[in-house]
C-alpha cells in the first residue's frame, strides 16, 4: 500500500507535510492508502480550495471536537445503512432478521475477495479509479442474491408459522453464514488487510504543531500531529447518505414504495388490493441486503483491517445498528437513519469525552433509556397491541 493519492511530487501530502514539520529525526512513515489518485486527479480542479491540503489552526478543544464529530458521522452513517435493513424487514414481517449483520459482513468480505482476486492494492498494482465502484456493485449484487436466497429458502416457508419460529430460524441462518464464512475456501479464519479503493488524500490539516528543535539539534518538544480530514472518509459518508436519500425517494415517491408501505401496514389487505405480497417482501430483503453490502464495503474502506467473518466485532456492530433501528423507531425508515447517526455520534463523543472503555455502554444505555421513556423510538409511534 502506498500513501493515498500522494505521488512522489513535492508540495503534496506527506512529503510537504514532513518538510513543513521538519527537524524531527524519527523515521518517516507513510500511511495506508489508495493505489491511484486517478479519480481524484479528475475531480481535483473542481476543488481548488481543498487540493492544497489546507492547514487550519483551531484551539485544541475544537480540534478534538471536530475529529470526534467527523468520526461519529462517518460511522453513524454506516450504522444507519445497516439499520435500514433491520427496520424495513421488521416493518413488513414484524420480526428481527438476525442474519442481517452477517450479510453486512459478507459485503465487506466479498469486497476484499474481489480486490484480492483482481490483484489491486500495493504500490506495484494500483487500482484504477473505477475499482471502488466496481467492487461496490459486485458486493451489492452478491449480497442481493444471498438476501433473496435467505428469504426464499429460510423465511418464506415459515410465513404462516408463529413469529418465534422465524426468529429462531434467523439466528440459525446467522450462525450458518458466520461458520460458512470461516471455511478456508470461502473467506478463512484469518483477518486480512483491505486496500483502499476509494480516492484518498488529505483534504485539510487542522491544528497540531511541528517539533521544536533546540540550537544543538536536540528535540525540545515533539511534533503534535494535526487532525487530518481525509477524502476517503468524506466519500464514504457521502455514498452512505446518497444511498439513504435514494431509498427514501424509493419508499415514499414510487409505486413500489407505496406497495411496500401497504404490505407493512396490513399484508392481508394489501394482497386483496392486488399487491404481490411475496414479491414485495423479496424486494424488501434484496434492498436491505444491498444496503448492508454497501455498508460492508464502506466499512472496509474506513477500517482496512478486516476481522475474520465470525469475529465478535461484527456481531457487536450488527447489534449497534439494530439498536439504532430501535432508537429511531423500528419499522420507521427515517428513524433508522436518524438513529444510526445518533448512535454513531453518541459512541464517539462518549469515547472522547467520557472514556473509550465504556464505548458500548453509552449505546446500550441509550437503548434502555429509549425503551423506558419512549418505547416506540424517537420517530416511531407507540403501537397499541391489538388483542
Amino acid at each position, binding site marked *: 500500500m502506498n500513501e493515498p493519492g500522494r505521488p512522489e511530487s513535492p508540495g503534496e501530502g506527506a512529503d510537504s507535510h514532513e518538510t513543513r514539520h521538519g527537524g524531527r529525526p524519527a*523515521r518517516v512513515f507513510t500511511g495506508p492508502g489508495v493505489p491511484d489518485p486517478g479519480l481524484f486527479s479528475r475531480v481535483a480542479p473542481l476543488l481548488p480550495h481543498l487540493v492544497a491540503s489546507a492547514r487550519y489552526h483551531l484551539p485544541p478543544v475544537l480540534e478534538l471536537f471536530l475529529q470526534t464529530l467527523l468520526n461519529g458521522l462517518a460511522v453513524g452513517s454506516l450504522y444507519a445503512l445497516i439499520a435500514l435493513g433491520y427496520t424495513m424487514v421488521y416493518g413488513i414481517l414484524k420480526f428481527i432478521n438476525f442474519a442481517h449483520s452477517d450479510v453486512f459482513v459478507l459485503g465487506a468480505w466479498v469486497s476484499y475477495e474481489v480486490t484480492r482476486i483482481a490483484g489491486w492494492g500495493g504500490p506495484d498494482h494500483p487500482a484504477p479509479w473505477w475499482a471502488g465502484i466496481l467492487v461496490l456493485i459486485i458486493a451489492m449484487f452478491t449480497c442481493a442474491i444471498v438476501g433473496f436466497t435467505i428469504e426464499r429458502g429460510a423465511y418464506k416457508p415459515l410465513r404462516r408459522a408463529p413469529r418465534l419460529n422465524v426468529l429462531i430460524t434467523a439466528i440459525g441462518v446467522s450462525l450458518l453464514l458466520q461458520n460458512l464464512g470461516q471455511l478456508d475456501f470461502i473467506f478463512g479464519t*484469518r483477518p486480512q*488487510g483491505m486496500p483502499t479503493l476509494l480516492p484518498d488524500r488529505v483534504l485539510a490539516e487542522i491544528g497540531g504543531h511541528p517539533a521544536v528543535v533546540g540550537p544543538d539539534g536536540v528535540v525540545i518538544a515533539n511534533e503534535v500531529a*494535526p487532525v487530518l480530514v481525509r477524502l476517503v472518509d468524506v466519500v464514504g459518508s457521502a455514498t452512505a447518505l446518497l444511498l439513504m436519500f435514494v431509498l427514501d425517494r424509493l419508499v415514499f415517491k414510487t409505486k413500489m414504495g407505496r406497495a411496500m408501505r401497504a404490505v407493512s401496514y396490513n399484508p392481508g389487505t394489501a394482497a386483496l388490493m392486488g399487491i404481490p405480497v411475496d414479491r414485495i417482501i423479496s424486494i424488501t430483503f434484496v434492498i436491505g441486503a444491498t444496503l448492508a453490502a454497501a455498508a460492508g464495503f464502506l466499512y472496509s474502506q474506513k477500517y482496512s483491517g478486516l476481522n475474520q467473518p465470525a469475529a465478535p466485532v461484527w456481531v457487536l456492530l450488527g447489534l449497534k445498528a439494530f439498536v439504532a433501528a430501535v432508537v429511531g423507531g423500528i419499522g420507521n425508515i427515517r428513524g433508522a437513519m436518524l438513529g444510526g447517526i445518533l448512535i454513531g455520534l453518541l459512541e464517539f463523543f462518549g469515547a472522547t469525552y467520557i472514556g473509550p*472503555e465504556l464505548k458500548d455502554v453509552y449505546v446500550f444505555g441509550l437503548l434502555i433509556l429509549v425503551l423506558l421513556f419512549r418505547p416506540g423510538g424517537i420517530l416511531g409511534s407507540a403501537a397499541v397491541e391489538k388483542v
Partner: protein
Amino acid sequence: MRTKRSVVGWMSAAIAALAVAGATGMVSAQDTIKVGHYGSMTGKEATFGQSTDNGIKLAVEEFNAAGGFNGRKVEVITYDTKGESSEAGKAVTRLVTSDKVIAVLGEVASTLSLAGGAVCQEKGVPMISPSSTNPAVTRGRDYVFRVCFIDPFQGLVVAKFAHENLKAKKVAVLYDQAQTYSKGLRDEFKKHFTAMGGTISGDEAYSSGDQDFSAQLGKIRSGAPDAIFVPGYYTEAGNIALQARKLGIKVPLLGGDGWDSEQLAKIGGEAIEGCYYSNHYAPDQKGELVEAFVKKYQSKFGATPDGLAALGYDAANILFDAMKRSKSLGGKDLRDAIAATKDFKAVTGTITLDKNRDAQKSAVVVEMKGGKPVYAATVEPTKK
C-alpha cells in the same frame, strides 16, 4: 407437515453420521499415547492456535519417526477454543475426562490458559502452555508449566529496548483491557520504563475486538510521544497502526509477542513497517536448532514459522523428553519429570524450568521490515 418431517429426517441422518464418525475415531486411536492440545483454531486469534498446532504436529511426527515412546506412537488430539475462555474449559475437560490424555498442551492466550489450567490442576494432568506469558497462569498450580518467558520479563525487554535502543523519553500506552496478558504487559512496562527515567505520556485502553481506536489515538496524539506501546494481539495492533498513520501519527509502535503472526503485515501493510515487538525467537536468527526447525517447518507447511509455532514445537519436545525420564506416564510421575527439566536445548533458547514452573530464557526484539519480522536485538534474563 411435509417440511417438518423432512427436517427431522435430515437431523437424524446428521446425528447418525456424527455417531459413525465418532465411533471410527475411537477405534483407530487405541494403542497410541494420547496428548491433548487446545487452541484457537478458529476465531480472532486463529493463527495462534493454528501455528502452535503445526509446531506440535511437526514435533510429534519427528518423535514418532524416531521410534516413538518404546515403540508406541504419540497421537495429538486438538480441540478448538475459538479464542473464548468458556470454550477452553470445556475443551480441556473433554480432553482429560473423555479422551484420557496423559498431558495437555496449550493455550496461547493467558486468559484461556488460566481456564484450562484450572481443569488440569483439579484432575492431576500435567499441562504445558507453549506461550501464555501472564505470571498467574502457573501460580499455585503445580501441574501447570510453560516454556516461554513471563510478562514481567517481556515488559522489561520492551522498556529496555525503548530506552536504550530507541532513546525514547516519552511513551504512550494503548492496551487491551479485556486481556490479562495485555494488562500485565502494560503494568510491567510502565513500572520499568518510569524506573529508567522515562515518562508515560498517555495510558489508554480498548477492548478486544474493537475496530475503532480514533478516540484513544486522538488523546495519545496530543501527548506527542516518541513511541506507542501496544501490548495487544496482532489484529488490533495492525488496525491501530493503520489508524495511527491515518491520523498522522508517525512514531514507531512497540509490542509484545501477541503481535507475532504473518497476518500482522497483511493487515498493517506499510503502516506497521519500522515497528518493533519482543518475541521468543526470530526466524532469521543464527543457530543450528533454529535453522533446522525453520527448514523442516517450511517444507511441511509452506510458511515461515512464527514464534508460536516454535513454542508449540518446544512444548511438545519438552513433554517427550520428560516422558522418557519419567517413571511412568501417570499424572504425578510425569509432572515430576517435567518439573526436573534443566538446560533443555530448544528452538526458542535453552530452557530451564524454575521453581515457579516458568521457563528461564532470553527474549529477542524484532523489527517489521518489508512485511517480515527481522532480528533486531537479544535481551537476556536478569539473574536475581
